[in-house]
């Protein structure tokens, strides 16, 4: 049905794709997997002929009898949305904020079938029903901002499937969503493929997702296809070194040389907790929606207890919006709880004086998710990494520099990095810098908020190794926040599961994954894609 042959693409003077060839048949799912910058999205946009303006292509893209490469606008406009449809990664921005969802879905129907508005609306109703948004609760007059991310992605799918396209291209359709939503959306896509006998190209960075979903697999790197074939055999055999590397990295578990620190044993041994929060509550004011009733505050964190012992790694998992980042900010004393207490090394943070807080901060440091926004782009590494030394007044310039060099060496960076700017480093290196910055005051606790979520799998594995090694060498305790269970499982001693502001489960990491008790934990475990499980579950008929 779709056949790409020898596709080359360059944007400006930069070559993006080198000699891409692939094909897909009706009713089949083709996965394209690769790390960022591998050219997987550009391959999809080439098929849609929606490339940036200054791009130059050569080769061939055949769709049925049509040659799509350099096809004229008229042909492409007939095909797009009708025969080939696409779903994008970011559901929050992919819908037009000023039009209702009904109008946006019906638009394509009226455009391609030239039907009256009434009929288009009827069909839209059916589509909404099909993607799990019954119009009784989701009237067509809703605007995108009134829907959640998962609901918007369903609207996108309804829009894409409106004309029963022969080929659907989904570019990281679930990357911006929580795992439970991801599972639902993938399930929806799979059933639509079966019903309508569509071909689906599923682009993903996640091997486990493609292992669950696809029939055929293409592995891309640096604009080239490095491996391709039936998904099952490719991922089981791991013949190609890059495929093997990806597979290992995505299920990488850092080796630990010390036993986990468990709360139960620590209490028995009479150890004092490092940090201990009791009955934390954080309310946020909301806008009033009605003139006569005062606005009810939104309770982001609702009576949470957390205890972490020295050297312990505590995982904190939950879906987005469950309150885990708010909790983290309170533990870092960057946000004040509405009520409750936080004891750090016997100091009550909520009522501590400014001086006491300054002293305590030396022992609590933080690593953030986004390696791009966590540094002031105008400062050099020396100043960036030294920033927390503000908490240790009276250091000379020389002493400061020594401390920075030591911290850099600890995370595997050279002293030559001192005079560089953050943009001169890769994402993984920046995350090392962020860790160096957190280490420089020799803290007892590091709060890491999704520290590896923005990284490609191979980089992620390296950073996890580094975190493990530092923990063992320096006796650090971590509070490790993540939405990704596989990462938490790899690193943490114990895990807290959070749901709508409450802790719903607390236990030893491996127990929670093997035998979750609460509904929230069960759902998370079940929905988390897992490469090994996916391969085992593949129907025996497929290879």
């Amino acid at each position, binding site marked *: 049905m779709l056949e790409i042959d020898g596709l080359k693409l360059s944007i400006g003077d930069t070559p993006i794709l080198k000699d891409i060839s692939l094909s897909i048949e009706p009713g089949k799912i083709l996965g394209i997997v690769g790390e960022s910058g591998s050219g997987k999205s550009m391959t999809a946009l080439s098929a849609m002929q929606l490339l940036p303006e200054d791009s130059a292509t050569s080769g061939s893209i055949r769709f049925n009898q049509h040659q799509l490469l350099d096809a004229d606008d008229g042909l492409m406009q007939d095909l797009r949305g009708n025969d080939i449809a696409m779903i994008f990664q970011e559901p929050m921005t992919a819908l037009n904020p000023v039009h209702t969802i009904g109008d946006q879905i019906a638009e394509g129907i009226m455009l391609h079938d030239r039907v009256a508005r009434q009929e288009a609306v009827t069909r839209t109703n059916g589509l909404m029903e099909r993607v799990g948004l019954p119009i009784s609760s989701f009237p067509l007059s809703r605007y995108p901002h009134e829907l959640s991310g998962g609901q918007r992605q369903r609207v996108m799918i309804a829009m894409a499937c409106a004309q029963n396209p022969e080929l659907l291209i989904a570019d990281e359709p679930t990357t911006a969503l929580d795992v439970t939503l991801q599972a639902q959306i993938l399930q929806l896509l799979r059933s639509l493929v079966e019903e309508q006998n569509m071909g689906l190209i599923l682009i993903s960075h996640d091997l486990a997702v493609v292992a669950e979903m696809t029939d055929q697999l293409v592995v891309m790197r640096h604009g080239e296809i490095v491996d391709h074939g039936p998904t099952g055999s490719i991922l089981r055999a791991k013949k190609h070194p890059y495929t093997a590397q990806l597979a290992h990295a995505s299920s990488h578990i850092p080796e630990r040389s010390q036993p986990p620190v468990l709360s139960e044993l620590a209490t028995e041994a009479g150890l004092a907790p490092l940090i201990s929060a009791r009955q934390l509550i954080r309310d946020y004011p909301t806008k009033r929606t009605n003139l006569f009733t005062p606005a009810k505050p939104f309770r982001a964190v609702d009576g949470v207890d957390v205890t972490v012992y020295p050297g312990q790694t505590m995982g904190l998992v939950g879906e987005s919006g469950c309150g885990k980042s708010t909790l983290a900010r309170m533990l*870092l004393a*960057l946000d004040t709880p509405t009520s409750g207490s936080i004891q750090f090394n016997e100091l009550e943070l909520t009522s501590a004086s400014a001086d006491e*807080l*300054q002293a305590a*901060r030396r022992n*609590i*440091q*933080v690593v*953030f*998710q*986004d390696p791009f*926004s*966590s*540094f*002031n*782009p*105008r400062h050099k590494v020396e100043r960036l990494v030294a*920033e*927390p*030394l*503000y*908490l240790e007044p009276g250091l000379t310039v020389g002493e400061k520099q020594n401390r920075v060099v030591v911290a850099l060496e600890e995370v595997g960076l050279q002293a030559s990095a001192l005079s560089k700017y953050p*943009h001169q480093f890769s994402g993984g290196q920046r995350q090392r810098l*962020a860790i160096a*910055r957190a280490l420089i005051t020799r803290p007892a606790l590091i709060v890491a908020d999704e520290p590896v979520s923005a990284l490609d799998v191979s980089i992620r594995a390296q950073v996890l190794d580094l975190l493990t090694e530092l923990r063992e060498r320096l006796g650090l305790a971590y509070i490790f926040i993540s939405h990704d269970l596989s990462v938490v499982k790899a690193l943490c001693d114990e895990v807290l599961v959070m749901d709508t502001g409450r802790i719903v489960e607390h236990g030893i990491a491996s127990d929670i994954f093997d035998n979750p008790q609460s509904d929230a934990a069960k759902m998370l475990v079940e929905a988390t894609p897992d490469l090994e499980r996916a391969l085992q579950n593949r129907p025996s008929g497929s290879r």
Partner: protein
Amino acid sequence: MKQFLKTAMHNRSFATGIVITCFIVLMAAVSFIWTPYDVTNLDITAKLKAPYGSHWFGTDHFGRDIFSMIMVGARNSIAVALAAVIIGVGIGVPVGCWAAARGGQLDEVLMRGNDVVFAFPSLLSAAMIAAVFGPGAINAIIAIGIFNIPVFARLSRGAALTLWPRDFIMAARAAGKNKTRITIEHIIPNMANVLIVQATVAFALGIILEAGLAYVGLGTQPPTPSWGKMLNEAQTMMSFAPHMAVIPGLAIVISVLGLNLLGDGLRDVLDPRLSRKRD
């Protein structure tokens, strides 16, 4: 800096803008030590002359040399516009940063105050100040300065609000730095680009506004030469000495154009979105 100029000069807007701006500033500077004629020197025998050999830009109805007046007038335009920008930046940026850092009620109050000031275009405030204190250059500076304050306050508040949730600010807070210190160390340097661009634009607008005020008699008073005043005097002479109106107007257009080009160029050169692409 050297590196910056090197890349910047490749930008056509920036190059043209900086050349024009430097030329105008140079002209104003030279006028302190030398002008072709003394601008206070009235020479009735040579009045209303169109541009010719010894008076490049002609003479006015008192026989004063227009080229010399343009040179001295540049001084006035630059001084007033610059002072007004300094007032706008000096008050607007701290207010905007303060509002963004504190948030909540204070933010609301400060920004509403901004709206009130916005309702007073500089011509209106100048009219009021003139009604009270009488017209003059200081008057113009204050009026245009007041107009600039909410512009910079809004801009810096907006920029600061996008910066505050960034992780590197969080990291600075985790390092125990207070909001004032973070604002000075992290917020202001990171909005410097937009501020510089806006300052150039406000400077250009200041020149136009100053000329307008002087034209209606609310700004710089005679005998100090100013471009706006020259246009006012030219109005009644339009039918027989159009050069008196054309030349000061061109001086305004060229300086404003130069500054606007400079602003556009700076925006292109300093735009973080573009520089990220280059990385």
